[in-house]
């Protein structure tokens, strides 16, 4: 009986330790830094087509200090289950002029919009192949989850990504 009890006690202690570890991971992921895997053509040449791993921090977006040229991860306004990475081009009150159709240079319509209150304007660096604010308009600041600040993988580019 005593043996059984000590086994149960140990199992309980192990489970509790594991739970604590998961909770710790959740808190660091959601409030401090969070690894993200990014791939696709929209941020070429800064972010490669092939999957690469970055660290993104949550403190700047939470304290409202996201500014121009920051590369941010946000929830897609078109599909809440996906997150996308783009560069912040304009903050609320900025007026943005963009070419709505960069492929056809003969009918390049320039359009100007003013970013509304509480919103930001995001665009991919590769303007020829990016679904961004030119397509779905300015996004609410609340959709921004984190800001990219460190490149981890591939290892030969390991280092700061703060001002890229």
């Amino acid at each position, binding site marked *: 009986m005593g043996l059984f009890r000590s086994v149960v006690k140990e199992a309980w202690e192990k489970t509790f330790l594991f739970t604590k570890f998961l909770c710790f991971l*959740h808190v660091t992921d959601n409030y401090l830094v969070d690894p993200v895997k990014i791939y696709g053509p929209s941020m070429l040449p800064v972010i490669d087509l092939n999957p690469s791993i970055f660290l993104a921090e949550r403190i700047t977006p939470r304290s409202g200090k996201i500014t121009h040229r920051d590369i941010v991860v946000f929830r897609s306004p078109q599909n809440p289950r996906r997150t996308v990475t783009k560069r912040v081009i304009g903050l609320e009150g900025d007026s943005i002029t963009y070419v709505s159709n960069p492929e056809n240079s003969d009918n390049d319509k320039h359009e100007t919009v003013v970013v509304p209150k509480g919103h930001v304007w995001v665009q991919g660096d590769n303007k020829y192949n990016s679904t961004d604010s030119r397509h779905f308009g300015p*996004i609410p600041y609340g959709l921004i989850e984190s800001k990219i600040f460190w490149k981890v993988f591939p290892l030969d580019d390991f280092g700061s990504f703060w001002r890229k």
Partner: protein
Amino acid sequence: MGTINSLWNFTKKFVTIGLITVTVSDRYVTVVPVRGGSMSPTFNPKTDSFTDDYVLVERFCLEKYKFSHGDVVIFRSPLNYKETHIKRILALPNEWYVTRHNNDVLRIPEGHCWVEGDNAGSSMDSKSYGSVPLGLVRGRVTHVVWPPHRIGAVKNTKTEGLLPSL
């Protein structure tokens, strides 16, 4: 020596409880107060500030972002990310909706929803800022848990103004 030891134990317990509480309230369920009368009579039926309703919010819906008409949700305001609003979903993505205040017919864009307060007269909602991205939703309200005489499930009212899809 004894005091330092017990202080250390106390800190450890405190941090552990904090981590678990934050994780559960971020991922599973949480309780939030309802401020203001925009959802009256569902919440805060009487407008005096001593009896703010407290509601239970579940976060499991954030796995799939599947909602139905009449769900009451909390979401970050599209105008100010620091504010959290509580409203009822009246229309879901790709639906046609007739607004109640001026009878406009509009199509809800992909990944968005139309939210309004139950107290149509005094509510800042989709009537002023348009449809809201579902990505801003932070959870679904299921029960009122405080004050005691108002404990109960939140009813999912039937919504009007939806047009049959074309």
